[in-house]
């Protein structure tokens, strides 16, 4: 469905964010993109949705294809027109508009009123709370509700590929679990999803496939189940240790000595 080949992205003149990324989003699958801060996860989504230039980034090399269409040169509006809709990081809702207006804003791409009504019904089924609060200002919703609104707004245009940028950011664990469920439901209704997450536990439960980014390159890729078995992912993102407690302690000790060797900010000397 979506293929990314040798994608290279830079911010400004010097900051290289992605050095040659390859990945595939299968038809109606969920792809999880994991990685630590600065790995280039958000940059990847910005590039796909065409909003990279708003963040002063440029595509230096590589191609993105959606079906047989090349989309890395299109503007954001036409990318949405193709059915690729993003949910930006940090639930960027329109805070001064009502909940309902936010949803209407999401449907700006959908032409017929009938399809819009159907989409709204679907969103209200997924998120009953949005129907209850239709007339409230979106800024007054709780964090979890705002995230639901951001996802619901993206669903209003009936996307075929949904790009989610850290939907779990700053949410309570229970709400995170609920968001995970919703992503699975969206997927079950036939929408492919690219899920960028730091919360690897949730992401790997939801996804079919996963890639791990490390400073702008793909470090690991494979099926979600396979990756959650892998030692490296467990060690880095799942908080568990693959080998044994002894190995873990050894590692912790190594980390301590390393830390002691490093200069810290412990005291102001001057």
């Amino acid at each position: 469905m979506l293929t990314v080949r040798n994608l290279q992205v830079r911010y400004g003149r010097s900051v290289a964010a992605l050095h040659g990324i390859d990945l595939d989003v299968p038809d109606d699958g969920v792809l999880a993109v994991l990685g630590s801060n600065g790995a280039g996860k958000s940059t990847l989504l910005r590039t796909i949705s065409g909003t990279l230039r708003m963040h002063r980034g440029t595509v230096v090399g590589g191609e993105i294809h959606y079906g047989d269409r090349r989309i890395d040169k299109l503007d954001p509006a036409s990318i949405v027109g193709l059915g690729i809709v993003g949910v930006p990081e940090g639930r960027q809702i329109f805070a001064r508009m009502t909940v309902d207006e936010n949803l209407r804003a999401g449907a700006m791409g959908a032409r017929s009123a009938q399809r819009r009504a159907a989409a709204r019904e679907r969103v209200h089924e997924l998120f009953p709370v949005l129907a209850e609060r239709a007339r409230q200002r979106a800024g007054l919703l709780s964090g979890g509700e705002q995230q639901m609104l951001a996802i619901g707004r993206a669903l209003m245009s009936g996307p075929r590929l949904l790009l989610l940028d850290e939907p779990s950011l700053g949410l309570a664990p229970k709400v995170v679990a609920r968001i995970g469920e919703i992503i699975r439901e969206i997927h079950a209704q036939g929408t492919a999803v690219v899920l960028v997450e730091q919360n690897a536990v949730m992401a790997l439960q939801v996804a079919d496939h996963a890639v791990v980014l490390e400073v702008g390159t793909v470090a690991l890729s494979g099926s979600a189940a396979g990756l959650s078995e892998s030692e490296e992912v467990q060690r880095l993102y799942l908080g568990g240790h693959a080998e044994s407690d002894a190995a873990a302690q050894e590692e912790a000790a190594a980390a301590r000595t390393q830390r002691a060797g490093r200069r810290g900010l412990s005291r102001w000397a001057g």
Partner: protein
Amino acid sequence: MSEIATESPPTAPESPPSPVRRRGPMWWVRGALWLALLVLLLVLPLYLEAQWLRAGQYMMVGAVGAIGLTLLTGQAGQLSLAHAFFLLAGGTSYTVLSGSTEGGTLVGFGLDPLLSLVGAVVITALLGLAFAPVAGRLRGIYLGVASLALVFLGLYFGQAAETLTGGTSTGRSPTPFSLFGFEFSNEGDLEILNVPFRQAERLWYLFLALTAIAFLLARGAVRSRVGRSWRAVRDNEPAAAVMGVSVPRAKAGAFAVSSAYAGLAGVMTVLWFDILKPDESEFGTYGINVSIAFLAMVIIGGLGSVPGALVGALVVNGLPQVLALYSTDLGWFTGTGEGTFTPVLISSFVYGAAIILVVLFEPGGLAAIGRRIAGRLSFTQRGKE
């Protein structure tokens, strides 16, 4: 939230409240009020003297311009101080398009006045569009300052292009507006209900019609997809972009529409003064103070509110006119020379104070106060049901 965090899929609520826009419980009261206002405005020329009608027309000029600015600044979130420039551009375009060539000193195309009016609106819209690349790059106060440059450009242009504007010393008189042969001037005798209909009365209806059209179009834009895309861009550009709004196009469109409104207000200004006279200094009919007056109308009325812009224009453009009329009757502020209180000076103080009060106590402006009153009324209404 808590009980649905379990494995079971959420059940749809039994009856979600319909999100479709319903008529408010007070819709018929609102309708009746609007109708009463319209009737009142239609019969006023039968009772008021010409000078009062002219004061009212000046408020309508302000209203049309302010509606344009509230769309740009309130709905699309772009601060503009260039309104006075577009006023001058609109007025000049109308005068040139409808005027005649006189002895080689003036350029005129002699077009039909209605066509000229439409042409003037289109020309100013295009000028606004030409400024869009700048508007797309800057925001907030930076855009305000950049747009202010246009006012000085207008000042220079007015002085330099004497063949178009008539120059700062004499100005140029515009062709009176006429519609299908009916002139909006003192030509001919027309009496309705024993009231002679001369220029003031005729222009009143013309201005009323233009203001009503401007108002309805703006309200339509605000409620439709266009307005939604403007607000989306105002609230959050990246989010608007991923929703499929073309951000540069939305911004350019807002600027063009706002300029078109200013252009129409410029045509009305020229017709009202019965002369196009470019300014000698930057504080004239098309100067900085006018740009700021429009901003004041929009802030007092409530940013983004179309009815608010009407009320703001009533305050800012109406007050000096009404004070001047009263003061001649009552003998107030009749002194001359430096340091005397003229009606214009006093109304500047009043609307300056109004801006401060609005910003301090009700940032939503008069529109927010109106909404609150309406909300309270409909609440008591609902309580009775």
